[in-house]
């Protein structure tokens, strides 16, 4: 599905505080599988997610999506790829305050121009699926952490993406909610979505839902065996 080769990423390149967060990554993310990135803090997991998810460009290296090299594409195309193929679940959820759960969920679908009533119906369906139908009209800042995350998941799914990217999805949840999230994750995997997540939560990386765990350290992958 996604193949990255020779990825290096520098922050503050050319300045005194230049820092190479990724230092030569080759990774193939298989379609319809759940891949987890694991590693100590600062090892570059989030940085790698931003590159795979077309949120940032690598300093060096190539990214292939379904065999097509997308590293050199202009921003417009990357935006379109993000919108059409990826669904993001951010660690801080990143919902837009002041908007209702429903309005947040349909936000990524705006540029598609799909009719609003259709979108709202789909959003309600997603919310109901995560047992949150009764909170649809609540402003997101009034929702609990677990509820916010479920709204964020619905938002990630509104455009029916092939790939779901989640950064530390259980870091802000208690054990019970984390368990619920694993249920949702299993569902997403059953829907044949490609899932890439980072975590150092054993509940996640040791779960049977995860097909493959990739270890990282100091911006490099640790090759097992």
């Amino acid at each position, binding site marked *: 599905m996604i193949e990255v080769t020779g990825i290096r990423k520098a922050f503050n390149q050319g300045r005194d505080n230049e820092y190479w967060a990724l230092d030569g990554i080759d990774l193939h993310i298989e379609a319809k599988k759940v891949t987890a990135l694991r590693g100590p803090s600062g090892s570059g997991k*989030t*940085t790698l*997610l*931003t590159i795979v998810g077309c*949120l*940032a*460009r690598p300093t060096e290296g190539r990214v292939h999506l379904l065999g097509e090299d997308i590293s050199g594409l202009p*921003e*417009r195309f990357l*935006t*379109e790829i*993000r*919108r*059409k193929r990826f669904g*993001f679940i*951010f*660690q*801080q959820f*990143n919902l*837009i*305050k*002041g*908007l209702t759960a429903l*309005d947040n969920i349909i*936000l*990524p679908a*705006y*540029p598609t*121009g*799909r*009719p*609003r009533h259709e979108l709202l119906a789909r959003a309600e369906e997603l919310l109901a699926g995560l047992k949150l139908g009764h909170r649809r009209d609540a402003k997101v800042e009034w929702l609990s952490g677990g509820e916010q995350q479920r709204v964020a998941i619905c*938002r990630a799914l509104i*455009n029916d993406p092939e790939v779901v990217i989640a*950064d530390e999805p259980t870091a802000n949840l208690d054990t019970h909610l984390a368990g619920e999230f694993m249920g949702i994750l299993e569902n997403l995997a059953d829907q044949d979505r490609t899932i890439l997540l980072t975590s150092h939560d054993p509940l996640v990386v040791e779960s049977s839902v995860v097909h493959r765990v990739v270890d990282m350290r100091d911006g490099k992958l640790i090759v097992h065996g």
Partner: protein
Amino acid sequence: MKLWLAKQRYLIDFTLASLARRKTRNLGLLAVYTVLVFMLSSVTLYTHALRQEAARVLTASPEVIVQRMVAGRHDLIPPGYIEKVGRIRGVQKIEGRLWGYYYDAVTKANYTFMVPAENAPVAGEIVVGPALERSRGLAKNNGISFRSYSGKLHSFIVADVLPQASELISADLVLMSEASFRAFFDYPVGHYTDIALSVANPQEVRNVALKLAAALPDARPILRDEVLRTYASIYDWREGIVLALLSAAILAFGILAWEKASGLSAEEKREIGILKAIGWETGDVIKMKFWEGLLISLTAFLAGFVAAYVHVFHFAAALFEPVLKGWAVLYPRFQLTPHIDGLQVATLFFFTVVPYAAAVLVPIWKAAITDPDSVMRS
């Protein structure tokens, strides 16, 4: 097309929602903005209306007025003088005028007493302008007394009140008969305040004036053209002040815009990042913010302009009185005719709405073109 429309509708919906979310901040911004537009519009509407009014009054005034100067001061026209002036070639119509200022201690206002050339009231009766009607509570058939400069009380019956005309000059006017006037001001018979004359050939006005000055060295001819020019220079001077005011307002406006421009809040930046990350195009983000700016600036423009209109034409620009007081020397009291000029509105619009919209877009654009990866780390 349908898709495009659906997108615009969504965008506007979102913009409105996002404006409502930052209610206090946006209302504050709107208030400051409106006040600035109000000031700018008031100043422009006011000066423009004054110019128009003055031009109108002047076109109705005689081409040449002759005053007599004695020891550098305006003195009465003695008997026989008018005939002398009438003998100058080129002079067509000639007429001695009787007018004077009267300070009314009751209302602390100056009135212009005048004998009209036609339809003068009969002796003992006066016709008053709307200013007196207002300030002295006069109506038809009321009696009123004025104490003359000699100390004697003169009583008059108000025969009529002048209609609320657009002419600046009529408001404080008191029209009376020649006999009443002469009695009140102690003007001897045959004396006049000044002489109004018209010239057969408008091209000859200057020549006639020169001949006049040569024939009667104590005569001071005042040409309408010159008055116009004097007024223009006074207007220009006023406009200097106004311009200073204006630039102050523009400066304040610039600061506002700059503040807004540099002050993209962390929250706003975060939102832009989120929208981009989840698939909004840079153009969509900018459009959304553009709508936001446009809504604010248009609302402020409309509110400010309407308020300025009311201020200038219904409250006679009361707020500017201290600054523009000098006008009162020309015309003690006046009512401006409401007037809107398309070009003027366009200019105002251009100087208030456009720079704001532009200033707002720069930081948005900067934020919108950066990689949205920071949303992963907030």
